[in-house]
């Protein structure tokens, strides 16, 4: 019974995931694309929960959905008309064909690679304890095995914050240069 429920949830979440991803790519209006991405993130959080990653799922919703997407929506709102009604796909048609081919082949290769290397082992998932995926175990890993990744990530965040401020600042000289060129 539990298996059946899990399967249903999985199918639903997967479907939503793919559909919203396609929607992001297809919609013309960036606002709608952003909203579709939020849906994508939510369905992914469900999938993470199915995989036993509670902390990650929470983090996904909070960080991605709560922060990143909010930023996106702010920017879209700020730009307003300037986001442009760029046509869906411009450029020579061979680019679309090549793109679909490349992407399709990557997908096929991923499946083949994974299938070849793992063989039948994918069906035997390891058994996990109740503390799998809890904040406590994640935290322990961050502060012991993966300390460097933790620290480096914090530095990257700092750099990104500074970069964001610089890019968004009203530096008068920059504006004058660009205006003179424009």
């Amino acid at each position, binding site marked *: 019974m539990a298996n059946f429920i899990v399967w249903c949830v999985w199918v639903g979440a997967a479907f939503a995931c793919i559909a919203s991803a396609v929607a992001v790519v297809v919609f013309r209006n960036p606002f709608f694309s952003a909203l579709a991405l939020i849906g994508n993130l939510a369905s992914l959080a469900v999938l993470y929960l199915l995989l036993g990653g509670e902390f990650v799922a929470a*983090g996904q919703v909070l960080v*991605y959905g709560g922060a*990143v997407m909010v930023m996106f929506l702010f*920017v*879209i709102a700020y730009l307003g008309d300037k986001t442009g009604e*760029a046509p869906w796909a411009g450029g020579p048609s061979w680019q679309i064909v090549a793109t679909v081919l490349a992407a399709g082949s*990557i997908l096929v290769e991923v499946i083949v690679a994974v299938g070849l290397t793992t063989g039948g082992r994918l069906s035997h998932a390891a058994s996990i304890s109740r503390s799998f995926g809890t904040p406590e175990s994640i935290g322990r890993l961050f502060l012991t095995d993966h300390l460097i990744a933790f620290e480096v990530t914090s530095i990257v965040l700092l750099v990104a914050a500074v970069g964001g401020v610089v890019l968004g600042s009203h530096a008068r000289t920059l504006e004058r240069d660009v205006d003179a060129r424009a």
Partner: protein
Amino acid sequence: MHGPNIGWYIVLAGMLFVIGAIGVLVRRSPLIILLSVEIMLNGANLALIAFARHYGHEDGQVFAIAVMAIAASEVVVGLGLIVAMGRRNVELDVDKLRTLRG
């Protein structure tokens, strides 16, 4: 484990990745491209977490959190660029931004 085995999750992650890739390659607005990149990153995250579950180690989840942090930083910088472009009335069309032409 209940539900589909890891293989299904991996295929799903691959599809997400590919859809994101198509989005990056085909759309011309930088905003949409950025969103597509997010989709690709999420696809990778899904694969990481699926394998973490498969092997019983949380290292994949740790990695996924790091990816999330990096993605966030990247979005900050990218959006900053787009805002700067918009403020200077540069047209938001990737095909028009050609100063790197060789």
